[in-house]
């Protein structure tokens, strides 16, 4: 085992896939000469050349669509969108085109494409640079959406995403890039898309989460263990397809559930999880399912306001304690 950062896991895997398959190319803004806004692609252009690691103009709709068209002719592009906020100008190419081309044309052509992009907020990036839009894509049949929380999962899911013949939205997190974890050396393992993982077993309450919020959930679970509260953490890893079975089985065991998500409260991933739980484990529930999510404002710049608007460990602890109390009044 080696210890590496989330960033290093990404950089390693992208390099390995470039070396493995000449149809793999990286495309995006500032990923080559500039080495990547968040240094995910550092060193790759000098190693593989400008034709494999392609700097694009600022034209997300253009180069995302270009990657879709190239994929239709057998290439396997990996596109970086600098942050998920900028993906909105490319959404027509993703939702109206990439996701539908295989099905709508009767299975005659494939779109082996990965779009990787960091979601969520960090620091004081304010309203237009701190958003979480993974649910927009998870909503769309024809796409696959993954959101790894650890360097180990990054490697396994990125390999699967690149080798998959469908468009995969690969959700990263700015706040995770410097986090570290164990990764096997010299092992070409993959992780299946569409399968969640119980990252920590527990008996009192299930916390369902993904990406950075899984890391927060694991920390909270560890802390609450000292108070005698046993938290099971289900890491979704994949938002579409959604592994409903793993969620439902966990709640059947613990009888209580909280969703921790960085996106906005209404219509977020948590709403889908809560619906899944009531459909699949209604009779097992000892308390309503709670959602801990972002406050519904355009994220303000001022540090105090910003902090108060983002979900965090104290919010999760409060929610867990509430579902454990049971039988109380349940105002939102």
């Amino acid at each position, binding site marked *: 085992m080696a210890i590496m950062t989330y960033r290093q896991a990404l950089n390693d895997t992208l390099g390995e896939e470039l070396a493995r398959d000449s149809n793999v190319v990286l495309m995006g803004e500032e990923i080559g000469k500039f080495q990547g806004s968040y240094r995910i692609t550092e060193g790759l252009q000098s190693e593989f050349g400008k034709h494999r690691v392609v700097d694009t103009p600022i*034209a997300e709709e253009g180069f995302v669509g270009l990657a879709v*068209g190239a994929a*239709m*002719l057998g*290439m396997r592009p990996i596109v970086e969108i600098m942050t998920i906020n900028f993906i909105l100008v490319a959404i027509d190419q993703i939702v109206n085109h990439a996701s539908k*081309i295989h099905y709508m*044309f009767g299975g*005659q052509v494939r779109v082996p494409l990965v779009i990787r992009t960091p979601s969520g907020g960090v620091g004081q990036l304010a309203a237009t640079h701190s958003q979480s839009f993974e649910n927009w894509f998870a909503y769309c049949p024809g796409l696959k959406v993954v959101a790894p929380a650890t360097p180990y999962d990054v490697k396994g899911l990125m390999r699967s995403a690149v080798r998959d013949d469908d468009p995969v939205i690969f959700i990263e997190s700015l706040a995770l890039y410097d986090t570290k974890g164990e990764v096997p050396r010299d092992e070409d393992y993959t992780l299946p*898309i569409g399968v969640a993982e119980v990252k920590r077993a527990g008996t009192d309450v299930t916390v369902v989460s993904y990406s950075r919020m899984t890391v927060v959930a694991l920390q909270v679970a560890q802390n609450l263990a000292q108070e005698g509260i046993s938290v099971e953490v289900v890491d979704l890893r994949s938002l579409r397809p959604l592994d409903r079975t793993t969620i439902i089985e966990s709640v059947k065991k613990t009888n209580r559930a909280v969703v921790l998500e960085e996106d906005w409260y209404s219509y977020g991933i948590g709403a889908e999880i809560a619906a899944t739980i009531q459909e699949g484990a209604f009779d097992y529930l000892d308390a309503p399912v709670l959602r801990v999510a972002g406050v519904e404002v355009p994220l303000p710049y001022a540090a105090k306001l910003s902090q108060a608007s983002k979900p965090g460990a104290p919010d999760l602890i409060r929610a867990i304690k509430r579902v454990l109390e049971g039988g109380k009044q349940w105002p939102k």
Partner: protein
Amino acid sequence: MAKRTNQPTTGAEPAGRDLSSENPQELQQYYAQMLLLRRFEERTSEMYTKAKIGGYCHLNLGEEATIVGLMAALTPADYIFTNYREHGYIIARGVAPGPVMAELFGKETGVSRGRGGSMHLFDATAHFMGGYAIVGGQLPLATGAAYALKYQGKPGVVVCQMGDATTNIGAWHESLNLAALWDLPVIFLVVNNGYGMGTTVDEGAAEPDLYKRGCAFRMHGERVDGTDVLAMRDATRRLRERAEQEKKPAILEAVSFRFRGHSVIDSDRYRDPEAVKQGRNANDPLPHFAHQLVLAGVVDDAWLKATASRIDQEVQEAIDFAEHSPNPKIEDLFDYMYATPVPNTPGRAEAAIIAQNAQGGR
């Protein structure tokens, strides 16, 4: 707002044209293909009113010379992306009219297995890479296909067809910039039929000479009479050669006249009926071309009659094929959802339940 320019005119080619350098058999083929597209679309319109065809349906009436001239210049290695007004393109590319009509009927034997419909025709073997129904959507895709051809060192070019109003959307600018910046072998074919739905070219474009709109990208552009099949073929050949050999993209604006409303359900009330009638007569590519062929001795009246009758029969057979083809099964609803199967996606078992619950299904 003052009009910057009049809509360019088409047709009115002097009748006595020198065709001595042309291959007579090819000329006959062009005419027969144009007539096939004409009859196919007329019968499509009829099938629509009989409710055999659903959804939106856009016809290529008046654009036959543009389409046949284009296809005459392309090679099997080339790729074609179009918008949603594309029945004629896929047929002229060599796909049989039967499976095309079957797609309009929503049948399993259709070119997109009944999953696409009129606006989403596709044939991988013919390199017909799809009709696309979001205006501008096919432009980045076609640019990407050209990128792939260049990256993989393959021969051929990409033709990206669109309507005149597409030159106003963002994808146009981003695609042209990328194609010019990276020297990609793609021809942007702008079919200027004068109208984007009910909006004239002048009303939507600050530079209504559409072929000039590539100047911002230092991209070559030219205008051709889209009702003249030979002019269209020759212009495409020139730009195709340039795209393939020099890896230089270009704009080709083909001017024609839209015979009817935007789609079959558009009653065309925003146009003066008398002007439409005159426009049709002046810009109909078929009688013009037939007249030229007769004068040049390439065909005679008997040939024209026999050809019309053969094509009527061919289109009727396409309709019969569509009519007698099976509907897609609800049990196959989730087929083609994903090319690479992964856990937790719906499949045959879920589709079987939906089929069971569907009222009057099949």
